[in-house]
């Protein structure tokens, strides 16, 4: 009991304290980079384009999120009308968060830390996206910061499906495994910037998907809303046991270039459908 309590204290208390301890200094560095250095660069270039571009990029990213959210809701309404099975829609909101650091102090795990926490409505398990696609989910939360586990991490699992060309094919679903792990659960030493292709396992053995097929979230894991882009299929092959098919997936999002992410924050304690 004592050892379990000590471990929980370490996991929750000490780690949250350490993140909160660094938060003011990292925020200050981020503020400096965004305001002072951007303005300095614009002075050097004798124009204000740098600051304007940054502002416009953020606005465009927010608008893209709104549009994709609206599209997803429209599709959901159409499905509900067809099925005549109405469910109450849980209200949700997007929380924009700046990326403070990547990989923490060790770079062992594929994770990022963002400058939004429980005080901003972020909860453990909330999905994280950018306009290009899914980034990951919130693994740990403190008052002002959150740790995001990327989908490229070997510990990440996402329930997804393929965007099949015709309705005759039916829905083809699988489980997405993060890169870096080998069959049999024997991970090799990996480099943070090297993204091993993700593995989509347990696909139907009889369906041979075409390369560049879009892989989207299925919504079955109740973590990510349905229909969000994850990546693109490279190739597929039968698994050694012959019972299912495995595919390699390239993520749609460039994890090394993330600057601002969007966290889906739900209200009322339930996930958005």
């Amino acid at each position, binding site marked *: 009991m004592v050892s379990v309590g000590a*471990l929980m204290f370490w996991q929750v208390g000490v780690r949250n304290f*350490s993140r909160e301890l660094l938060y003011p200094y990292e925020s200050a560095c981020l503020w400096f980079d965004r305001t002072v250095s951007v303005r300095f660069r614009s002075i050097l270039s004798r124009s204000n384009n740098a600051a304007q571009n940054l502002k416009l990029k953020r606005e465009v990213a927010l608008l893209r999120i709104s549009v994709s959210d609206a599209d997803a809701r429209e599709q959901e309404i159409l499905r509900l009308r067809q099925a005549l099975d109405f469910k109450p829609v849980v209200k949700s909101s997007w929380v924009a968060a700046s990326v403070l650091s990547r*990989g923490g102090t060790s770079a*062992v795990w594929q*994770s990022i830390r963002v400058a939004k926490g429980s005080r901003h409505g972020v909860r453990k398990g909330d999905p994280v996206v950018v306009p290009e696609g899914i980034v990951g989910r919130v693994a740990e939360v403190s008052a002002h910061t959150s740790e995001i586990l990327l989908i490229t991490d070997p510990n990440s699992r996402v329930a997804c499906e393929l965007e099949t060309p015709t309705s005759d094919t039916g829905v083809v679903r699988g489980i997405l495994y993060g890169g870096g792990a080998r069959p049999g659960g024997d991970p*090799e030493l990996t480099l943070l910037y090297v993204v091993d292709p993700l593995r989509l396992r347990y696909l139907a053995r009889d369906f041979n998907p075409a390369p560049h097929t879009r892989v989207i979230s299925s919504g079955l894991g109740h973590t990510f809303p349905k229909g969000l882009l994850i990546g693109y299929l490279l190739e597929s092959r039968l698994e050694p046991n012959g019972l299912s098919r495995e595919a390699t997936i390239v993520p749609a999002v460039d994890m090394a270039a993330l600057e601002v992410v969007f966290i889906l924050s739900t209200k009322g304690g339930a996930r958005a459908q």
Partner: protein
Amino acid sequence: MRSDINLPVMGVMLLLAAVLQDMISVSLWIPVKLNFLSVVALFYMVTRPFTKALLAAVWAGALTDTLGGLPPFCTVGFLLCAYAVVHALRSMIYRATVLSGVILGAGLSCGQTLWTRIWAGASGSAGGWHSLALLGSSILAGAVVGGVGFAICLLTDNLSGCVQSAKEKNDLSWSKAD
């Protein structure tokens, strides 16, 4: 009476090292984290007495573990072992210099990379080009961080008065010392 400001200076240096190590992300050319925390702890292992050196190792290890998502006492254990090695080599490392920082930093970084990956569960084959690139990069990064870290720590010590210069110890005033 002169107050001992070793602990505040150590605390500030470790905090600064934590911010730098956390915010500087890996890249194509440096695919490992720059281990500023361990290098600062290493400096205090070389220059401070037992209790302060041990405290620096524990603080640095705890910060690395908590901010890096590592299992408890992973880096703390490594730094305590590193202190044992440094203590054994004390006769060779009689003072902290930039050169000793480069050499010790390179060795420390390589050892820490291996220790961390094995402790954290990445127990796959130690061979392969990726693994060799990782270890080689960690040695190079450790050498650079070791030199820079020792230089900054030496400067901080002199500015804060934690270490008296040799000239002062000989009771010579600055104007007369060579």
